[in-house]
């Protein structure tokens, strides 16, 4: 059924994203809405297609249903292929034994070696489902081939003073990695791993089998497999990437990355259609901007209706901002409704949330003591009653007793 592929991609999408709390209680992190029209996973998936990689395994485990129904047969990404295409790979329950979640990133790939082998690839890309960036993997692959390495790791130059927050790669003159340090106190270089690996399949296979056989291993790429390859003397090359790249693992970084999308001519350059980001577009009529609306420096999406004031915000589809409502520095996910006179600022409103008439959600940092301030989050379906107040930094998973719903 399958044809040989030079390179296939394995996308780790099982992350629970527990630091995103209320936003990931019902969906896996890669399925979190992002940037007005997307979900996080759209970025690596679109990168694959745009790079000419037409075979992608998506490894799921936490809350797979919504993610797998979002991906479907892969049509929005042009990945509905006869040969190759996108495949959802949940943890596999073997005959007689009990299935468990993937023990680590390496174990996830190990468990799906049968899937990979079907395509008899020369190279395997291992990607994360929680980064926002545009990258041409075919250039990474060419670098990998040229360097004749067993593995190539994509790295980003970060400011030296921040380097101790990252996994740092120490490289020789030819950019071969001789040492990997996770969050080093005294970093020797500023090359941070982006969690994007290109492996020669034969080597990957060999090290995955060895890693699985090692009871002391936590079966993780960064923690186990890469160090094992280094100590065995394999060539591991660093590929220097420059451009926008953001990990969106926390509420603040997610909020921040959404705000970055407002800079339409810099950052990830969403409007550059030589490298489109594909997504499943809902079947919605155009957005309606009412005659009393005021909108500035904001993204608004189809199916939404705006009658109030929106500033520095990202509105997903089917959002409704009623007359007199004010939205500032906020992210309103699909179906969020803000009733008249309500104020939402520095907040993330998850899907189908509702802010009642005159309510106030979140607060500006200049009106709040620094230690009390933070982005306010309303979890999916939460309703704030009319006149209610939700303080900064609050994180509501469910509508409180006095909720309207």
């Amino acid at each position, binding site marked *: 059924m399958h044809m040989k592929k030079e390179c296939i991609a394995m996308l780790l999408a099982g992350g629970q994203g527990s630091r995103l709390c209320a936003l990931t209680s019902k969906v896996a992190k890669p399925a979190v809405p992002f940037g007005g029209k997307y979900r996080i996973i759209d970025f690596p998936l679109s990168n694959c297609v745009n790079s000419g990689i037409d075979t992608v395994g998506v490894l799921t485990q936490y809350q797979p249903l919504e993610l797998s129904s979002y991906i479907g047969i892969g049509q929005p990404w042009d990945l509905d292929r006869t040969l190759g295409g996108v495949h959802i790979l949940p943890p596999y329950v073997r005959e007689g034994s009990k299935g468990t979640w993937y023990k680590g990133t390496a174990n996830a790939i190990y468990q799906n070696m049968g899937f990979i082998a079907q395509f008899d690839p020369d190279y395997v890309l291992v990607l994360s489902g929680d980064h926002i960036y545009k990258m041409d993997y075919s250039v990474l692959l060419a670098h990998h081939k040229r360097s004749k390495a067993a593995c190539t790791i994509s790295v980003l130059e970060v400011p030296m003073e921040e380097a101790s927050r990252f996994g740092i790669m120490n490289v020789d003159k030819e950019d071969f990695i001789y040492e990997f340090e996770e969050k080093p106190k005294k970093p020797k270089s500023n090359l941070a791993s982006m969690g994007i690996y290109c492996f020669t399949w034969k080597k990957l296979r060999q090290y995955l089998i060895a890693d699985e056989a090692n009871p002391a291993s936590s079966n993780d790429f960064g923690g186990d497999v890469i160090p094992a390859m280094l100590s065995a003397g394999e060539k591991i090359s660093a590929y220097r990437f420059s451009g926008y790249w953001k990990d969106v693992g926390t509420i603040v970084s997610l909020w921040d990355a959404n705000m970055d999308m407002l800079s339409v001519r810099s950052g990830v350059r969403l409007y550059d259609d030589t490298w489109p980001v594909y997504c499943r577009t809902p079947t919605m009529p*155009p*957005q309606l*901007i009412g005659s009393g609306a005021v909108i*500035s420096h904001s993204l608004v999406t189809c199916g939404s209706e705006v009658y109030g004031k929106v500033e520095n915000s990202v509105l997903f589809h089917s959002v409704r901002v009623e007359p007199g409502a004010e939205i500032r520095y906020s992210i309103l996910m699909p179906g969020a409704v803000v009733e008249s006179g309500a104020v939402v600022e520095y907040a993330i409103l998850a899907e189908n949330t509702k802010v009642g008439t005159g309510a106030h959600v979140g607060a500006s940092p200049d009106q709040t003591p620094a230690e009390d301030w933070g982005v306010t989050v309303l979890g999916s379906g939460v309703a704030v009653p009319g006149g209610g107040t939700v303080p900064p930094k609050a994180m509501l998973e469910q509508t409180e007793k006095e909720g309207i719903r």
Partner: protein
Amino acid sequence: MNNLHGILFAYHCNPRLRELTEHRTTSSIPFGGRYRIIDFMLSSYVNAGITDVGVILHESYQSLLDHLGSGKNWDLSRIRGGLKILPPFAYAKKRDGGKFRGEMEALAGVYTYLQQIHQDYVILGTGDLVANLPVGDIFKAHLDSGADITAVCVRPPVGEPEYTTYFSIGPNGLVSDVSCGGGNSLPYESLDVYILSKSLLLSLTDYCASHNLYGFSKDVLQNMGGTLSISPYIFQGYAARIQSSAAYYAKSMELFSPKVRSSLFHADHPIRTKVRSDPSTYYGPEAKPRNCLAADGCIIEGEVENSILFRGVRIEKDVRVKNCILLQDTVIRSGAILNCVIADKDVVINQGRMLMGHDSYPLVLAKDSVI
């Protein structure tokens, strides 16, 4: 499995649509910010569970081919059935490439296709109609009525009289008189959407082909009205016919009415269209949008009022756009001022230009114009 087969007449190129039909048929004119006119009927079909649709074309259909593709966006990409594009090959040979004179001639041109329909009933629809029709209900009404033909009609006039068919309804609830192509003396207006059995359709097509008859309204409804029972289905929702550029403009502007929008767009019966991966629409720090319908993928940094913006429109700073319809990827450079303009795809208006039409005669800018 649904027992209703969909046919769409998409061969019309109404000359009164001027520049808008220079490169395309009426049915593939962009409408309502992100649709083509054909999307409305096609979605009405699909939402009623119709799985097989034949689209009859004649010329200038590259644009429609591009839009429909394999039918994937309407979930009509199938091995068996699904969406079939029906160009007039057999017909073109016979009549030396001339245009279809009417629906019956178009049907005769795809006779082999009609014979192979495996549903018992067929719905005929026109590609210039904007409406979200409850096709399932209409079909049920047809079966319940026992009539030969069910004709969908509306009470308040929506089309232009010279292209329109009118009905009166008799005391038995059936169509009692038919007038077409002239003045509007009868109270109901046909939307040119009909349901009839496959067998009746085939025999009417046969009869018309052998008697040099070609119009459905004139030659079937009017002339055979005595022998056929025609049941009206009175549609209460919003309907518009797009037959001239003035109508195109006026009907587009009606979309600002919440009542019209709620009749055309509802979540359970969505209007599906070709999907393009566009980001959200960005409004810049100095943008002043007021009363706008906008598709995704636009960058708006100037002033826009009472206007409809299609995908990928760019409005630079210090621009003033009022009462305009800007089709896909129109670019308005800084300082330009526009009023009552319809800009076709990929039009560029350069810095500081000023263009003014009138709402009774909007200025239509042809595709790819640079002004």
